[in-house]
């Protein structure tokens, strides 16, 4: 016969979903108290300030069309997402092993998959928060300068959320593979900032459209601000193709990246052993 404590402790165990929310809640707290988020918000402030103030200081004519005006701000979103994915996802998993906090968390009655999903949701939440702040201030500045706004900025933001989700998923996968935080952070950063964009730029030389490349899909964030939405064209002088990502296809590609990276990352995390 089992003791009262055994029964009580088993019966009150929360569902996996409830545990996911608990992990996410405390992981969000980690981000909110971290210098990384503060640093990114400061960077956002700098980018917004420079994009807004520099043309005024230089006496340059500002765009009158809200879409054109806010596009200058949106041009920075790509790099913000790279930095967000690096800082909030790049070492999310490996840090549990390297900093030995796994010794505290793993012996608890909670599945590894629950921890993984909870951490991912918190990272996604922080990236979305970061983007909301950025787009919100950019929209306010645009309204102040042009007296209007554009729904295209909302589409851009929604796509930025999707791109952020995919970039974070890639960060989680890398973080599940690496043994050290530094390597994981560096690889996440350079994969998103240099390696994938470089491949996406080289492929058109062989007339291959890089529609399957994560960072190429991320181009929709800026491209969506162009009206009408551009299509692929042959550059007449240099005679090479200029490719543009398609919105629908890019969303599908991002969804595939999210599914594959999270699935593989979770599998690796579940198999990973807590060895000193």
């Amino acid at each position: 016969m089992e003791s009262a404590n055994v029964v009580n402790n088993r019966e009150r165990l929360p569902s996996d979903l409830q545990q996911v929310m608990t992990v996410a809640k405390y992981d969000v707290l980690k981000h909110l108290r971290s210098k990384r988020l503060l640093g990114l918000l400061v960077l956002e402030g700098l980018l917004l300030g420079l994009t807004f103030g520099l043309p005024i200081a230089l006496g340059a004519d500002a765009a009158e069309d809200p879409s054109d005006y806010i596009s200058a701000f949106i041009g920075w979103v790509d790099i913000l997402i790279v930095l967000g994915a690096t800082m909030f996802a790049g070492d999310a998993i490996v840090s549990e092993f390297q900093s030995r906090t796994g010794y505290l968390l793993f012996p608890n009655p909670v599945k590894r998959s629950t921890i993984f999903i909870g951490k991912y949701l918190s990272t996604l939440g922080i990236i979305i928060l970061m983007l909301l702040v950025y787009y919100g201030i950019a929209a306010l500045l645009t309204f102040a300068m042009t007296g209007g706004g554009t729904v295209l900025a909302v589409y851009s933001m929604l796509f930025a959320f999707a791109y952020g989700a995919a970039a974070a998923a890639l960060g989680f996968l890398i973080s599940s593979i690496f043994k050290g935080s530094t390597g994981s952070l560096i690889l996440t950063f350079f994969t998103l900032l240099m390696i994938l964009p470089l491949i996406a730029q080289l492929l058109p030389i062989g007339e291959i459209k890089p529609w399957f490349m994560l960072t190429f899909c991320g181009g929709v964030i800026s491209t969506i601000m162009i009206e009408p939405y551009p299509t692929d064209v042959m550059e007449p002088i240099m005679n090479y193709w200029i490719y543009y990502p398609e919105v629908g296809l890019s969303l599908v590609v991002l969804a595939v990246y999210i599914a594959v990276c999270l699935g593989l990352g979770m599998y690796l995390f579940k198999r990973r052993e807590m060895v000193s």
Partner: protein
Amino acid sequence: MDAPIQVHGLTKVYGGGFRAVDALELNVPDRSFMGFLGPNGAGKTTTIKIITNMLTATSGEAVINGVSVMQDPKTALADVGAVVETPEFYPYLTPMETLHYLGALRGMTVTESTNRGRDLLDMVKLTEWKDQRVGKFSKGMKQRLAIAQALLPEPSIIILDEPTSGLDPRGMVEVRDILKHLKKMDVTVLMSSHLLNEVQEVCTDVALINRGKLLRSGSVADLLDEVKARKIDVQTRRPLTPDMFDRLRSVDGVKGFSITGELTFAIDFEGEEDAQARLLIELQNLGLLVVSFKESGLALESLYMSLIMESR
């Protein structure tokens, strides 16, 4: 009643073929405080990590309260509190927030974990630090907090992996005080250690392993009965001089002795308490002015060493 922790044929082979645990069989009796002993590399921590679902076994099974850790770790670990190695804490959380977090994962409400946490932090002497972030805590403070979190859900099973390892003398004393407190509680404890005096002091049962295999297990009292020879540490005000050696050897039960310091020596002795009392009288009669006379707690060490040597 079935043993709350059962290990059957547990084997762990690491990459490279190193067999850390080798067909280990272990039963931890209900409401016992079992010391899990073995030299470094014997497989203690590997076994505990498998039991707490931090490592995957190559083969075999660990069962907690009738539930296989391999098949359903969430249910199996529901009633287990564990401190494995020296865990690190999330530096951005305070001790109380840490307990809230881990309590929430176990289905405790904030009120429950606050009330229970207050008592536990008091027990581990961290009350005045409860609202400070853990980031700058010393190793001893973290270890005490680790024990507090293990006790949070009032588990009936507690697993401790070398809880005093790496602590300074003060930290060791503080953690040992907590262990003695645990001994009075109605729980089953499995504690790995290689500090035999610590085990002899707090454990009711002991399991000895080497090279991943169980050498012996049973109650401490039963195992000590197997060891007839005891060591007695003696401290005196006057030195033991060569002219006293023969007289000391002639005392009933004395098998030998060794000088350990200017005014200290250790006697290998075989006999019960009456014989020990007679030995003390003889020492006083030698004019040594005995200051301290106590069994050194090394009896378990004698058994341990003989079993380790046999297993090689």
